[in-house]
C-alpha cells in the first residue's frame, strides 16, 4: 500500500477534499500497489501537492543557493562543455582536441594513458598497452606537444592528474617556456581527491594515505599563492556512485571529504576564504532524473551552511558549491548500445536542471571501450541540442517550486545529513576511509542494487528485459595508436633522457625526497622543480613512492 501521509511544507496532504477523493479513487484502482523507492531508498509517492503555507521564495545566487550558485546561471553563462579526451601520442591528442573544439567543446580535458595513471614511463611497460585509453605524457615536452596551438592563458585546462600531480607540474613548466604567467593558468585538477581513489578507484591511488594527504595540502597552498586561477582540488563523488553508493551516499561522502580537506587546510594555518573558493566538486549524474536534481539542490544548500557556519567562511565565493558532472557510465549498457544515447540525454538533462557548471556527456560506446570519434561527436552534439534547441538555459532552476522536487530536495538533504553524521562519528572522512567503513557501506548498497537488477525489479532495457541477442555486444573501439608511432615516441623519449643533465635531475629528485622529511617544505613545489630539471613522470612518482610509501590497497574476495 503506498503511503500518502502528510510530510513537510510541500508534500502530499490530507486536508483537501479533492485530494482525498483522488486518493480514494487511486487506492481503489491500485489496491496492492507496492512502495516505489528511489536509488537512495526514499519512498516516492504517485502525487505531490502543496501543503501548508507557501514558503518564502528562494532565488538563485543567494545563500543557501538551493536554486543555483549564481544570479544568472546558464542564461548568463552556459555550462562548460568539457569533454574528456585522451588517446595515443601527444600529436594524436592534439589532433583530437582540435576536432572536438571545432565541434563545440569549450574547454580542454586531458586524460592520460593508464600507464601514466599507474605511475610509469613509456619505456618500462609493454608497448601494446600504451596510449590505448589515454595520452602518453611523461615529461613537459609531451605536454607542450599535446597542447600545441592552445592559448594557455585563455582556455581552461582540466587535467586528470592524481597525486603527485605531475601533469600540472609539466603544464607549469611549459607555461614558463611560453612565458605565460602562472597566474593566468586556469583549470581544474580532476582526480586530485585521493580519498575517493582509496575508497573507490584504485587505479588512481598511488601514494600511501599519509603522503597523499600531505601532498594535496602542499599543492593547495602552492596554487593558492602561485597559480590562483587553477582549481587544485576537485572532490569526487563519481567513483563512489559508480562503485554502488546511492546518490545520497555519494553526495554525503563527497561533502564529508570536502569537510576533511577544509579542516586539513585550516590545520595548516590557511584561512577558509583563502582556499574554499577554489574547491570544486565532480559528480556522477545517473538516470534517476528527479533524484539527481534534488541531490544537487540539497548539496548546494548543505555545503553553503557547512562553509559558513561550521568552517566560518565569510566570503560568498567560499559558500558556493561549484560542480562538474559526468553522465554515469554505470547506467549504460553493452547490449543495444545505441540506446545509450537516450540514456545520456536524460542524464545530461538532470545535471543541467540540477544546476551544474560543467558537463561531460558519455559516448554511447563508453561502456565498451574508449569512445569512437562518432560516439564523441554525438555526445557533444547532445549538449548543443539541449542548449540550443531544447531551451535548457532559458529558465534558472525551472523545477524549483515543484511540489515533488522541493519535497525530494528536503528528503535528500535529510538522508545526506544522516550519512554525514555517520562519517563524523567515525572521526571524519580520513578515518572513515582508512578503517574501511565507507567501503563497507558502499559495498552494501552495491549488492542491494545488483540484487534489484538480478531479480528484474530494476529494469535495464536490453539486459533484463527487451533483450535482443542479435543486436547485443556492440563492438569495442579498435581505434588504437599504431605500434610504430609508439615505438617512435619511445625512441625519442630515450634520446631525450640521454640528452638531459643527469646531475640536475638527480639533484632535483634528491631535493624532492628531502622535502618529504621537512614538515615546513612544500613537496609539490619540489615536484615542479623536478619537472623543470627534466625528471620524468615515473622518476618523480618512484621517488615519492619510495619515501612516502606505495599506495597499496588490499585484495580480498
Amino acid at each position, binding site marked *: 500500500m503506498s503511503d500518502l501521509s502528510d510530510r513537510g511544507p510541500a508534500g502530499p496532504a490530507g486536508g483537501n477534499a479533492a485530494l482525498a477523493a483522488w486518493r480514494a479513487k487511486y487506492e481503489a484502482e491500485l489496491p496492492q500497489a507496492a512502495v516505489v523507492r528511489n536509488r537512495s531508498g526514499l519512498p516516492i509517492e504517485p502525487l505531490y501537492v502543496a501543503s501548508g503555507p507557501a514558503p518564502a521564495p528562494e532565488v538563485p545566487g543567494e545563500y543557501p543557493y538551493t536554486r543555483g550558485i549564481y544570479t544568472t546561471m546558464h542564461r548568463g553563462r552556459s555550462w562548460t562543455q568539457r569533454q574528456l579526451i585522451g588517446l595515443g601520442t601527444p600529436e594524436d591528442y592534439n589532433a583530437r582536441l582540435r576536432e572536438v573544439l571545432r565541434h563545440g567543446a569549450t574547454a580542454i580535458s586531458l586524460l592520460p594513458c593508464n600507464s601514466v595513471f599507474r605511475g610509469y614511463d613509456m619505456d618500462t611497460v609493454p608497448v601494446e598497452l600504451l596510449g590505448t585509453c589515454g595520452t602518453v605524457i611523461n615529461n613537459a615536452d609531451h605536454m607542450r606537444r599535446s597542447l600545441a596551438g592552445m592559448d594557455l592563458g585563455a582556455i581552461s585546462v582540466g587535467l586528470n592528474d592524481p597525486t603527485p600531480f605531475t601533469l600540472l607540474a609539466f603544464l607549469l613548466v611549459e607555461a614558463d617556456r611560453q612565458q605565460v604567467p602562472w597566474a593566468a593558468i586556469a583549470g581544474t585538477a580532476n582526480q586530485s581527491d585521493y580519498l575517493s581513489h582509496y575508497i573507490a578507484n584504485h587505479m588512481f591511488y598511488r601514494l600511501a594515505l599519509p603522503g597523499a594527504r600531505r601532498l594535496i595540502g602542499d599543492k593547495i597552498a602552492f596554487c593558492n599563492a602561485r597559480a590562483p586561477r587553477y582549481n587544485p582540488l576537485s572532490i569526487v563523488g563519481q567513483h563512489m556512485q559508480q562503485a554502488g553508493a546511492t546518490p545520497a551516499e555519494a553526495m554525503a561522502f563527497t561533502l564529508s571529504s570536502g569537510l576533511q580537506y577544509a579542516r586539513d587546510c585550516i590545520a595548516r594555518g590557511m584561512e577558509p576564504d583563502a582556499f574554499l573558493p577554489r574547491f570544486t566538486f565532480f559528480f556522477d549524474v545517473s538516470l534517476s532524473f528527479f533524484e539527481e536534481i534534488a541531490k544537487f539542490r540539497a548539496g548546494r544548500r548543505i555545503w553553503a551552511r557547512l562553509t559558513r557556519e561550521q568552517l566560518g567562511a565569510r566570503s560568498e565565493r567560499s559558500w558556493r558549491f561549484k560542480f562538474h558532472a559526468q553522465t554515469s557510465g554505470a547506467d549504460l549498457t553493452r547490449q543495444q548500445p545505441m540506446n545509450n544515447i537516450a540514456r545520456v540525454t536524460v542524464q545530461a538533462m538532470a545535471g543541467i536542471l540540477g544546476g551544474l557548471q560543467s558537463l561531460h556527456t558519455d559516448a554511447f560506446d563508453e561502456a565498451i571501450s574508449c569512445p569512437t570519434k562518432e560516439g564523441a561527436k554525438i555526445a557533444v552534439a547532445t549538449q548543443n541540442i539541449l542548449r540550443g534547441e531544447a531551451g535548457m538555459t532559458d529558465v534558472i532552476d525551472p523545477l524549483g517550486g515543484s511540489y515533488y522536487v522541493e519535497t525530494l530536495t528536503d528528503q535528500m538533504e535529510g538522508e545526506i545529513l544522516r550519512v554525514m553524521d555517520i562519517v563524523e562519528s567515525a572521526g571524519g572522512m580520513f578515518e572513515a576511509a582508512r578503517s574501511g567503513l565507507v567501503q563497507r557501506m558502499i559495498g552494501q548498497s552495491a549488492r542491494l542494487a545488483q540484487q534489484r537488477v538480478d531479480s528484474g525489479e530494476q529494469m535495464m532495457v536490453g539486459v533484463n528485459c527487451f533483450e535482443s541477442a542479435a543486436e547485443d555486444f556492440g563492438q569495442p573501439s579498435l581505434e588504437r595508436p599504431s605500434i610504430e608511432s609508439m615505438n617512435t615516441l619511445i625512441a625519442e623519449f630515450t634520446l631525450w633522457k640521454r640528452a638531459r643533465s643527469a646531475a640536475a635531475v638527480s639533484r632535483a629528485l634528491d631535493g624532492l625526497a628531502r622535502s618529504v622529511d621537512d614538515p615546513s617544505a612544500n613537496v609539490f613545489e619540489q615536484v615542479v622543480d623536478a619537472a623543470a630539471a627534466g625528471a620524468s613522470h615515473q622518476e618523480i612518482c618512484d621517488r615519492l613512492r619510495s619515501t612516502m610509501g606505495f599506495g*597499496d590497497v*588490499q*585484495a*580480498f*574476495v
Partner: protein
Amino acid sequence: MSAIPAPLRALLPAVVERDARALGRALTIVENAAVGNDALQAALPPAAAQRRARRIGITGPPGAGKSTLVDALLAQIVAAGLSVGVVAVDPSSPFTGGAVLGDRTRMREASLHRNVFIRSVASRGAAGGLARCVQAMTSLLEAAGYPIVLVESVGAGQGEFAIADLVDLSVVLCPPGLGDEIQGLKAGILEIADVLVVSKGDLPGSEVTHRELLSALSMTTRPKRPIVQRVSAADGGGMVDLMLALAIPGWAAPQPAGA
C-alpha cells in the same frame, strides 16, 4: 607403508637441484596422493636426505595478523641473504569444498622475491590427512635445500596440534584485545606454543594483552615457559627479538651503524 608414485620419484633429482617447476609438480603429487614421509625420505638422493631445515610453525586466529607477520619475517630472512620455503594453509569451505587461498596475496612483497618459495594448501577438512600432506611438502622443500621452512595455518582445530608435531618451533599469535578470552583460549593452543606473539604491537590493547598472557602463563605447570614477544609489523618493533627467539641458523641481528 606406501611406495611413492613413479612420477614423483622421477621429479626428485630436479627437486634437489631446486628446480622450481619440478618442486611445484612434486608438491602437487604429495598434495593429492597419500605419500608417506618415510617413503619420501627413502627415495631421496643421499646428499639431499641429509638436509635439515629449521621448521617453524605459525598459527593464530583469523585476523590476528599472521600473514602480515610472516611477510615481515620473510623480509628479515631475505635481507640476511637466506632463502626460505613457506607452506600456507587456508581453510576449505565445508559446504562447497572450495577455498580462497588468501595468505599468499597478503604476503605481497615477499612472494615476489626470488629466494622465497610459497605454496598454498587448502585444509580440505580432515586433520590427519592435512598433517601428512604438510609434512611431505615440508620434506620436499627441505630436500630442495631451503634452510628454513615456515608453515602458516589458521589456529582453528585439531590440525594445529598435528602440525605442531612436525615443526621444530611453534609460534602462536595473539591479537591485542583478547582480554578474558585468554582464559578461554583452547588450552592446547597455548600449550603448543614455544613463542607467543602479541601482534599489532603498535595498537593500544597490545600491552594489556602482553601482561595478561604473562600472568596467565605464570600459572601453568609446563616445564618450559614459552617466550612472550610483542611485535609490530607496522613499525618493526620487537621484530629483532622475535627473530632471535626463532633461532634461525645464519640469521644474526643487524649491527648498529658504526660510531
